[in-house]
């Protein structure tokens, strides 16, 4: 059995066990990881309780065997279509910085069921002999799909005199995930995240490495911070969720966009939909202003009675509250 498929089954076991319906025993013996020859840690953003969830404990006894003993598994949120900048520090096992050396950040690792494509202006190393004509980093696939491995792309970096390399990319996730309760309350796969039809939710996996496409043995020789990025849309909130409006007049409906930290999000394109009574919205699409606000106008002919629901979407997804208009005489 392909190692990656086995890995998926392990993850699938976890997810299924939560459902309490089925248990699949992995068809291999657990190999206790040993310390790696290289250590690579995420130093910016510095993972902590306020910006990430440490999933390391979830890895023990299952997929951590594919990496060095010092594996950390970290989940973080990022805004849909936002820029991602990650700085890793590369050292040897003794802690000495590995300087002026070509290093990699493997993005959309094979079998990672990645949820997004990226683009980067940095150098990339594609699998095999591919020489990309574009700066795109495409999705990789789940381990049970034949395309698995085709998308894995390594961004090429060069460590500085402190052993650090920074990798920048932009994500092009379209739908995003559900909005979390708080930035450090990530939708962990073991905590009931909506995984869609994916086998498991360790998707969109990024990992530093000394090699572009490390072999299994090379990965076992590296203690690293494995990163799972989860992409969320800004939250859309109707400034006035519900109101009565006299038919025959018009009303401006305003929504506010906020991000994970509650900060206002400007410059995002919002589309509007209308359901129920009243005329269609006058503005189908607006870009949020400096105050994170967008507005559209609705009206209804005289004599209209009933409910009209105005729904705002960002990047095609509905993340937030609708506005309700009750048309009255």
């Amino acid at each position, binding site marked *: 059995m392909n190692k990656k498929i086995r890995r998926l089954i392990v993850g699938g076991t976890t997810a299924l066990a939560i459902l309490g319906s089925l248990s699949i025993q992995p068809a291999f013996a657990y190999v206790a990881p040993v310390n790696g020859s290289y250590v690579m840690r995420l*130093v*910016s953003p*510095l993972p*902590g309780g*306020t910006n990430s969830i440490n999933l390391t404990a979830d890895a023990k006894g299952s997929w951590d065997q594919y990496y060095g003993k010092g594996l950390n598994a970290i989940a973080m949120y990022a805004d849909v279509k936002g820029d991602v900048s990650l700085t890793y*520090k590369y050292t040897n096992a003794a802690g000495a*910085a590995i*300087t*002026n050396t*070509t290093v990699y950040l493997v993005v959309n690792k094979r079998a990672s069921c990645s949820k997004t494509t990226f683009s980067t*202006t*940095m*150098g*990339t*190393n*594609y699998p*095999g*002999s591919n*020489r*990309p*004509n*574009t*700066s795109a980093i495409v999705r990789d696939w789940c381990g049970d799909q034949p395309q698995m491995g085709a998308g894995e792309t390594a961004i*090429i970096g*060069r460590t*500085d*005199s*402190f*052993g*650090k390399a920074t990798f920048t990319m932009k994500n092009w996730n379209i739908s995003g995930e559900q909005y979390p309760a708080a930035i450090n309350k990530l939708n962990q796969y073991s905590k009931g995240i909506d995984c869609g039809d994916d086998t498991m939710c360790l998707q969109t996996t990024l990992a530093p490495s000394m*090699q*572009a*496409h490390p072999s299994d043995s090379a990965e076992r020789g590296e203690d690293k911070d494995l990163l799972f990025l989860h992409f969320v849309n800004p939250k859309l909130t109707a400034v006035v969720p519900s109101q009565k409006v006299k038919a025959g007049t018009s009303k401006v409906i305003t929504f506010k966009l*906020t991000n994970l*930290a*509650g*900060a*206002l999000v400007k410059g995002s394109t919002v589309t509007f939909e209308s359901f129920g009574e009243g005329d269609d919205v006058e503005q189908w699409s607006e870009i949020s202003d400096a105050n*994170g606000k967008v507005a559209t106008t609705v009206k209804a002919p005289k004599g209209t009675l009933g409910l009209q629901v105005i729904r705002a979407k960002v990047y095609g997804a509905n993340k937030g509250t609708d506005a309700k208009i009750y048309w009255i005489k």
Partner: protein
Amino acid sequence: MRNVIRLLGFASLIIAVVSLGTITNAATVNTSLSKPKSVSAVASNGAAVVKWAKAVSSSKFKITGYRVTANKGNWSSVKTLSPALTSVRFSGLTNNASYRFTVASLSGKYVSPGVAVTAIPRGAKLSNSVLFGQPADMFLGAADQQLFAVAAGPAVNYSSLTPTICSIIGTKVHAKTLGDCIIRAAAPASELYLASVPIDRLLSIGVEPQPVVKTLLWADEFNGAVGAAPDSTKWTADTTDGCGAPYNNCGWGNSEREYYLASKNAQDGSSQGNLTITATRQTGSTNYNCYFGKCEWLSGKITTYNKVGFTYGYLESRIKLAAGDGTWPAFWMLGGNIATTPWPGCGELDIMEFKGTYPRTTYGTVHYANSGGAHEYKGGTRDAMVDLSADYHRYGIMWEPEEISFYIDDVMFYSMRKSDSGLVRWPFGPNAQGKDPSFYAIFNLAMGGQFGGSIDPTLNESNLKIDWIRYYSIDGVGKVTTN
């Protein structure tokens, strides 16, 4: 900063200053009447709740109720309450204004002296976020580094979470020893703001490295007279369409459409000094026959084969690429042992390849023979975001025995290690006998072919302009050879 604050729940502030007050209503004040006890006021967002303990009835005065008065300047509000109650809520108050609440006991027409407290309703406290700039890494012994962080509320406090490695002096970080220093920035709570979530930043403290020694070993600046051929001590022109000896490689192995002539390689005599390789479309009759019939394009190609070789080091050229769909200019290298170890075994390093149809993209590629002798290649590209045929750019290769990296304008865009090839020995490092390889440099302007693609039928001429080619050793690694 407004963007980083938001209202959070209800916060309350208690200010209770107990003092004697007066009741100005019509009832008669009687100092013998028992006063309410333990009067307090708890303010919240636009409201306040006044509480008290019951006054004690006496044989002479039975407590029949309470009168609670709220005062702010000339404004007042009076509530008369039953004797069973011990609290009352005032709403609709103005936040951040001081209110005086006076509670007095009632007994028929008499009223006790009032007991007054003050309270200030407050809106919800504002959350506070810290924006903390990433401090730069520091060399040991460097001057203390100013930290930058801002918050909506009180000033940010800094602390070192790694005090043995770094310390905070005022708003600066001081490097104490080698290691990773973590600085925390946080804003404390205040009357208006909640305490911020702390933000941590890591900076490394290291030793200043020795500068890289880059030594120029060889160059051609192409500063010859206008029309002059390239220096024949360095360069040889490859000619024909590849058919026939010594090449025996029609279409140069790629179905290319050009026929090379030495005359197509000429220096321009400009103040900058360029070598121009000109490709021109052949119209009408021509004396040149190509493998596919009458030649379509005449162009140029020069190499340093058997004249100048390079082993490791950094080779770079400043080039303005050839515009037009179908152009295929290249700056590349081949193993000098190609006569005895045919391609691909000899190795090929394409420092720059370019397609006129993708004018923003440069390609860097490593070609070699795999363990079975078959051709393999790996490479990368860079979208320069500008038309590379519109101006000069520098294309370089950093060649080490076990790693080759490709650059454009000092930006590395691809790197390959020997281990990526899966070979025990690759043609770009020492051979089984420990002998280092020697590669020669090539410039050419191909047209069409498998890489260049379809040629724009309206294109009649295109130019590849080479300002210079320079070769350096890096920290002593790199040497000029004759191959």
